[in-house]
């Protein structure tokens, strides 16, 4: 997966990032860089990480999400992950991985609601 193919879209006052199905460590690192760049450029209210297609979540990915949430918070934004699959949620819990203070929503729609209603 080429890092250039990542989409970080600004929608209204939010950033929407669609995470590819099976991201490698390089892609995940690139994703963080791209997100922080976009945070600086647009100063949005929050970030939505759409992980609907993601089939597995490893410790590196989990840690990067948690860290990105912290970084985005430092830059004044909220992070919401959207659409985690049930199987992924179960494995993540079984592995004892945590996503720090990242918020979660069932889908992108609800993630947008969550960000809109958050002050």
């Amino acid at each position, binding site marked *: 997966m080429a890092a250039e193919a990542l989409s970080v879209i600004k929608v209204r006052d939010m950033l929407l990032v669609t995470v590819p199905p099976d991201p490698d460590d390089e892609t995940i690192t690139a994703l963080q860089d791209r997100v922080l760049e976009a945070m600086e450029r647009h100063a949005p209210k929050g970030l939505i990480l759409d992980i609907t297609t993601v089939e597995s979540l490893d410790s590196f990915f989990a840690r990067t999400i948690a860290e990105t949430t912290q970084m985005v918070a430092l830059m004044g934004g909220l992070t*919401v*992950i*959207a*659409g*985690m*699959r*049930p*199987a*992924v*949620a*179960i494995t*993540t*819990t*079984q592995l004892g991985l945590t*996503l720090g203070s990242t*918020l*979660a*929503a*069932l*889908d992108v729609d*609800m*993630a947008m609601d969550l960000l809109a209603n958050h002050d």
Partner: protein
Amino acid sequence: MSKNTEKREGKKAEKPQSKRGGGRATPSPAPQAEARESGPSQGPPLSALFDDIEEVVVYVSDPETYELLYFNDAFEQSWGNALGEQCYKVLQGRDAPCPFCSNPHIFGENLGRTYSWEFQNEITRRWYRCLDKALDWPGGRKVRFEMAIDITQLKEAEEVMRAQADEIIELSTPVIPIWRGVVVAPLIGSLDSRRAASLAEDLLTRVAETQSQVVLLDVTGLAAIDTQVAQHLIDTITAVRLLGARIVLTGMRPAIAQTLTHLGIDLSGVATRSSLAGGLQIAFQEVGMRIVDEKAEKGRRA
């Protein structure tokens, strides 16, 4: 005439209506003639040992040519008289040796070992527990000896038990949508790790399916709670959170509240209520609805 054949003919005389021994008693081409005269090189002949045992299928075959060299009456009843034919053809209806043939387990470096396996025959559709071993055969060769016990009834009973166990698991963790965005999952009985796993799976799948923001996990019917059960609950709550939904534990009976506190389990990050009604109120708040007591409102206005 060999001893074997004499015995067969004797049997035939006693019970003329029986089809027993029919094919095997008649003189036939070379391999079969050899078979009739053979048996393990030491001890009593196989036919004396196994012919009358109805519950156990016994046969002997050549590991090189797969020819059947001996079988008992129980074998003949299921697969017919097939002396000299290939075992894979007769027993499995195949054109070539079975891919699962157990010969490698009893010949070569495993020579002398008894190999035990379970298996469902494609022709009779019955389950057998098979014991295989290499035997010495006249002429100095080693042959494959198999003894198969019919365990179909046992297998069927096992199947029924497994189905019932699965059914109990399914019945005991229903996930019921009660409002748009709200599901209720009443826990009943005990929560072991197997049930906890199925609960988490069902619950998360249903939450994703129904796009529910709130799950009311009712523990009224939970028989007992200990650290392990509590850990299962916490894991489920964490997983549901990752999905983007929220769990409210309802039906916190005094006994459960006491045990949780005594065990030192921290549920401070989880909304808990003593009644399902209390949980429902939280749920409605979460999805932006309100319950109005119309009677009381009217009374106040009057």
